[in-house]
Every structure is written in C-alpha cells, then in structure tokens.
C-alpha cells in the first residue's frame, strides 16, 4: 500500500465535510462539518510528516487541533447566543441583514 492512500482518505473526508457545510441547515451540524475538514487536513499533515521523515508536520497538526478547540468554544458560544435570541439553530433563520 502506498502512503498516498491516506491522502486520498483525507481528501474524501475533506470533501464530505465541505458538502456538509453546504448542504445542512442546522448550525451545529454545519460546525461538525468544519471539524471534519480540520481533521482531514490533520490526517494529511501526519501523512506528509511520515513521507518526509520529519515530525514538523505533526507539530502543525497539533497547532491545528489547538486552534480548532479555541474555534469550537467561540463558535458554539455564538450558536448558543443566536439560539437564545431567535429560538432556532438553523442557519437559514439568521437572515436579518437580508433586505
């Protein structure tokens, strides 16, 4: 087996995450799609680290994880705030700026 198979898996997962962001309406599920995309890039980082024999890729994946954790905190807080104000977690309902 070639190590590029891992990259293929990462690409498929990334595409599925992107499709989730485009297709789903529930803000929380959309957020999970973003998480899936971040995870897919992490898999690519780890695989590249192995291909090149250099752990820097793993360090970058580690940074991605930390930033993802911070992003989840803020994002979910925003979702909770929107839910409190509008009693809905659907991304379609947040269209106040639309004329």
């Amino acid at each position, binding site marked *: 087996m070639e190590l590029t198979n891992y990259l293929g898996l990462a690409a*498929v997962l990334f595409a599925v995450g992107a499709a*989730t962001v485009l297709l789903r309406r*529930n803000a929380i599920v959309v957020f999970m799609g973003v998480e899936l995309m971040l*995870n897919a890039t992490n898999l690519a980082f780890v695989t590249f680290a192995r291909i090149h024999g250099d*752990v*820097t890729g793993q360090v970058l994946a*580690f940074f991605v994880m930390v930033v993802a954790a911070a992003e989840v*905190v803020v994002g979910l807080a925003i979702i*909770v705030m929107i839910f409190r104000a509008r009693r809905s977690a659907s991304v*379609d309902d947040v269209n106040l700026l639309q004329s």
Partner: protein
Amino acid sequence: MTVSGGETALFWVLAPLMTLAALGLIFVRRAVHAAICVMFVMVGMAILYVAQEASFLGVVQVVVYTGAVMMLFLFVLMLVGIDAADSLTETIRGQRWLGVLLGLGLAAVLLGVISAATFPPAVGLAEANAVTNPVALARVLLADYVLAMEVVGVLLVTAALAGLVLTHRRRISPKVTQRDLARERVAALPQGRTLTPLPAPGVYAQNNAMDTPALGPDGAPLEHSVPRVLRIRGQARSATAVLAAEESLVARELADAGLLTADADADDDGARADGARDAHQGEER
C-alpha cells in the same frame, strides 16, 4: 520504507467505515446521530495516527477531539434542544444539487491532484522517532515554534474569555433569595396561606392512600391534604370509610386465625360480609 501488511489491513478496514460515518453527517436527520458519526470518524482518525507513527497525536486526538470538543458539541445540543431536526425547505433554489455538485467536484479535484502529483519515496519516521515520538515533537515544538506556541496559548485564553463573555446573561430582575421568599409567605398569611407545607394525605394499611385525607389532631379529616387533582376529579375518599374497612379486615383475619372468642363469633358473619364488600370495593377501584 514499506508499509506493513497489518497497517494495510487496518487502513482498508477503517477507511471505508470512516467514509461511511462521514457520509452519515450529510444524510442523518438528527444532530445527535451526526455527532455520534463524527465521534466514530475521530476515533478512527486517532487509530490511524497511531498506525502512522504519531502516537502523541493519536492520544491528543482522543483527549481533545472526542473527549473535549465532541462533549462540548453534545452539551450545546442538549442546550439547544435535542429534537431540532433540519427543515427541508430550500431558501436558495437548487442549493441541494449545487452543494452535491460542489462536494463531488472538490473530491474530484483533490483526488486528481493527489494522483497526479509525484511524491518522493516515503522516508518513514523511524529515525525521527528514535528518541520516542513525544520527545521528537517537543524538540521541534519548543525550538522552532516557540513563538507560535506562546501565541496559541494567548489564543486559548482569549477563546475561554470569549466563551464566558458571549454566553454571559445580564440579570434583568433582582435575584429572589430565600429571605425574600420567607417574607412573601408571611405577608400572604392574612390571605389564608399557611406557613408550613400542606399536610400529607393519610396512609392506611389497605390502600395506597393518596386519595384518603389525613386526620387532624381532633380526628376530623383534612380535605386539603388530598392532592388537588384528585379532589377535582372526585376521586378523594372519606377517611371513615377506609377506617371501617380496615377494622373489618382486622376482625376477619383474627377470625381466620381462630383467635376470636365464642361470643365474638356472632359478629363473624358480619365481619365476613364487610370483608367481602371491602374486596368488592377494591375491585371496583
């Protein structure tokens, strides 16, 4: 560097399952099921990290993603309402097909790039991981990326503060304390409210007695000890009926045990009749 047969098998078992679980994110209706799917993908990812000589990241993946991030997701799902299913009405026409098309297009482009690119022969991490994987990571992290790590620390603190500030709710009305509640009760005394809790309904041996009133110190039944719902439905019973039925039951049991004297035998028939009537009442109920 060659990939071992075990790792190949692991990959071909896990990759389809992970892809299926990821697709579940698109097709599953309920947000909780989607969260379970994502958890499966993340645990699978951790296993793949360990297989790819990144044991530290594998552990961090389990701790941070499945342990913290997905739990946070579940908490927010509980907060927002677990039944919140997606609406299927399209606000942008053709969004569904456009989304499917773009997703497939992205997959095609990424897979095309990967298959077209030529990668150098894989080196493997055996040499880099000679000092164990966490130590190797720490040497890079704390030597080349020290500034980035400090900045990320600041980012984490900022995010924690942001989470606190964003979800903070300002109190509009003054807080009601125990003291205020007590004062309110005393003030309501002239309107007929009692300070103490209401008396509990009476408990007699024969029935479960939510429907029979308690007896006051003077022996009079306290009507308000029966729950209001039962009183309104007309399901409350009088205490005297229950007491009489109980006495007759005791008399019958004593008679059955042969403890009654001869002169009490005269009452026996009456007691039996009472008991029969009592049993009948029980059936009716």
